[in-house]
């Protein structure tokens, strides 16, 4: 304030100085007087303004603290921007996750019995406290034609991974939307759902066994929504196949194709549902996995061939009068079936034997999550897998004993999980989960107890159904 006063005074002085040149001393004296009067006048005015600003600030602060309703003018249109995203910045949000794990068996050698290891981040995770993946999401409309989303996962091991990075069209006609880049495939129900929005701390066993968690690849997706009151969505995806059960091959064109269809609607005000079917057609080339031979020595085997997966999914949500803020029941289930035909190589680094391989594997889960009162939810999930009986020509021909493939023994892994979570706000979730895990390859039961926290900061997220 002092400096601005000075500037004003100097400006006034400058203006008065020019005609003052050549005037008598009397004139200068009277000018000085006038200037002084002017300065005093400004000082009082500025002082008054300062006082008013201070008064306004204190009343505003008081209003913010007490949340008193100020008396605003009667409603009048004051056109404002319809968008809340601040001045062209993308909307930014971050999710922090972490927790505590207690297992009765060594999680280091956790593997699903009877299934070729996916190499994904599966299993109960490490014991004791650990930081989960922190998720950083940026998204905004690019122009009238495209929007873009970037979701980075910062792992506890100090690595940054691109969870999703895709563009999406905004202006295609007739219900078409195209998406390109890296994204979670639209297959099934849970595949597209980000970890922080899961109803349990981990994915169902079918996702862990069939896709190593969630299936994503670099590619293109086209979806079409029918112009009907019944929700009917058809989608097709093609990508580079750089994810289990496919591998990235050194070939042009499409390496992995997915087709899916979803149907959904309401039953009255209280119930809504969605059901779907998906087909995933993939190729694998030298999809290697580490396992043990009959002597317990590590060997590397590899699969080359066709992998086809079918999935059906269904979700039903019920809330009295549709008011999910009070009570809500969500039931969901998915079934997957996979057919793999090709060649299985044994001990690629040593013996290098290879012959025909054929497997038919399936699995399903059913879970229910009930919000019995606002903020509290309880959930129960049952997982089951059927490894089938893989036909390994190396074994049937008598070259190797079936003990040479301990990971491919015929078993029926299953698991029961119980969950309780507390959501004090839309941005916090604290959860406890207990698993009776009979899915381990070594056939022993693991009892897993987990605590998890999830915190969301930044832009208010919107979740898919």
């Amino acid at each position, binding site marked *: 304030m002092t400096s601005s006063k000075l500037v004003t005074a100097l400006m006034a002085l400058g203006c008065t100085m020019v005609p003052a040149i050549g005037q008598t001393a009397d004139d200068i004296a009277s000018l000085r007087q006038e200037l002084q009067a002017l300065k005093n006048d400004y000082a009082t005015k500025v002082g008054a303004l300062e006082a008013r600003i201070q008064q306004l600030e204190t009343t505003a602060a008081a209003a*913010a603290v007490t949340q008193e309703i100020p008396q605003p003018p009667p409603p009048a249109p*004051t056109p*404002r921007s319809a968008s*809340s995203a601040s001045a062209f910045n993308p909307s930014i949000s971050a999710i922090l996750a972490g927790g505590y794990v207690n297992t009765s068996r060594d999680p280091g050698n956790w593997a699903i019995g009877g299934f070729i290891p996916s190499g994904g981040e599966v299993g109960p995770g490490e014991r004791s406290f650990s930081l989960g993946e922190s998720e950083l999401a940026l998204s905004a409309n690019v122009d009238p034609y495209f929007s873009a989303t970037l979701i980075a996962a910062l792992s506890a091991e100090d690595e940054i991974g691109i969870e999703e990075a895709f563009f999406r069209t905004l202006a295609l006609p007739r219900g078409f939307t195209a998406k390109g880049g890296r994204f979670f495939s639209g297959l099934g129900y849970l595949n597209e759902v980000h970890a922080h929005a899961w109803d349990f701390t981990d994915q169902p066993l079918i996702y862990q066994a069939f896709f190593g968690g969630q299936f994503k690849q670099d590619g293109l997706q086209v979806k079409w929504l029918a112009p009907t*009151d019944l929700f009917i969505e058809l989608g097709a995806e093609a990508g580079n196949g750089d994810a289990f059960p496919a591998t990235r091959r050194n070939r042009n064109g499409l390496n992995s194709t997915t087709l899916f269809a979803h149907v*959904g*609607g309401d039953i009255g005000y209280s119930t809504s549902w*969605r059901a779907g079917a998906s087909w995933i057609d993939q190729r694998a080339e030298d999809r290697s996995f580490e396992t043990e031979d009959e002597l317990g020595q590590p060997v590397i085997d590899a699969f080359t061939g066709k992998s086809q997966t079918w999935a059906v999914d269904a979700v039903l949500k019920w809330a009295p009068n549709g008011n999910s*803020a009070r009570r809500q029941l969500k039931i969901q289930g998915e079934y997957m079936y996979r057919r793999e035909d090709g060649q299985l190589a044994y001990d690629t680094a040593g013996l290098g034997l290879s012959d025909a391989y054929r497997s038919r594997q399936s699995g399903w889960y059913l879970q229910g999550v009930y919000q019995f009162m606002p903020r509290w939810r309880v959930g129960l999930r049952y997982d089951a897998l059927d490894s089938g009986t893989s036909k390994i020509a190396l074994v049937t021909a008598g070259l190797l004993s079936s003990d040479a493939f301990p990971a491919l023994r015929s078993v029926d892994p299953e698991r029961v999980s119980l969950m309780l979570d507390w959501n004090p706000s839309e941005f916090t979730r604290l959860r406890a989960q207990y698993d009776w895990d009979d899915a381990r390859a070594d056939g022993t039961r693991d009892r897993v107890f987990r605590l998890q926290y999830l915190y969301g900061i930044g832009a208010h997220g919107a979740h898919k159904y």
Partner: protein
Amino acid sequence: MIRFIRSILVLLLCAAAIPANAAALKVLATTADWGALVKELGGDRVNVYTATSALQDVHRVDAKPSLVARARSADLVVATGAELEIGWLPVLIQESGNSRIQPGSPGYFEVAPQLHLLEVPSKLDRSLGDIHPQGNPHVQLDARNIAVVAKALTQRLAALDPSGAQVYTQRGQDFDTRWQAAIQRWEAKAAPLKGVQVVIMHRDQVYLCHWLGLQELAAIEPKPGVPPTAAYLAQLVNKLSANPPRIIMANAYNDPKAAKWLGERIHAPVVILPFSVGGSAEAKDLFGLFDDTINKLLAVLK
């Protein structure tokens, strides 16, 4: 046989009637109030689907497949804005594959930017609860707001459906005349409510209090979106016992348990207000909503 031919003819007539109906402007309104308003302004020229009911918390709604399907074919989305529907409307618009209703398009209309919002927070921090940066979005219970929105919405309808512009303008004027008369009637009738001390449930009754001059003593939610704890309720009992409010206001969609508990302790009647069109048997349309709200408030004063 004749009956069969007759029924075929009836079917054909029905089929012929469908295109006429399909030509109507398809509107997806996020709340029952905006749905009712569009019906008032559009009449037969609009085909309105309301995404939520008065018994739902509009802030907590699932992006249901049925809503995505409605967004797909909508010509116009009428939303409250100010982040009221932020948890689900962006998903509907994104998944709809419908370029006409993208924010910024003529087919996307937000109510909040037309109005003077109350309680615009001077500090944005979620430790203060689920606050809305642009102000309190529960604007519909100040009847004067409805009149302002109706004018803007009439213009938007006319712009989207130019062949019906005259109809919209006329219906808009007609609605305004009836609405202004109703406002006068309601304000006169609600005069005894001026200065009456009330306790509100959530900050969604603020506009009603502001309009009718009800004096808010406290809110049952300590912070927006944060349910009261037993300790906080006990504190409220202490604070309000000496000078109890005349009315405790709850909405049709609220769980009235906390309000009733408090009402019994401090001997104040709990009134369940419709809050939105459809929230009570009497609140069949916008006029019914305000008639019923004021009647219910006056009834407990007697």
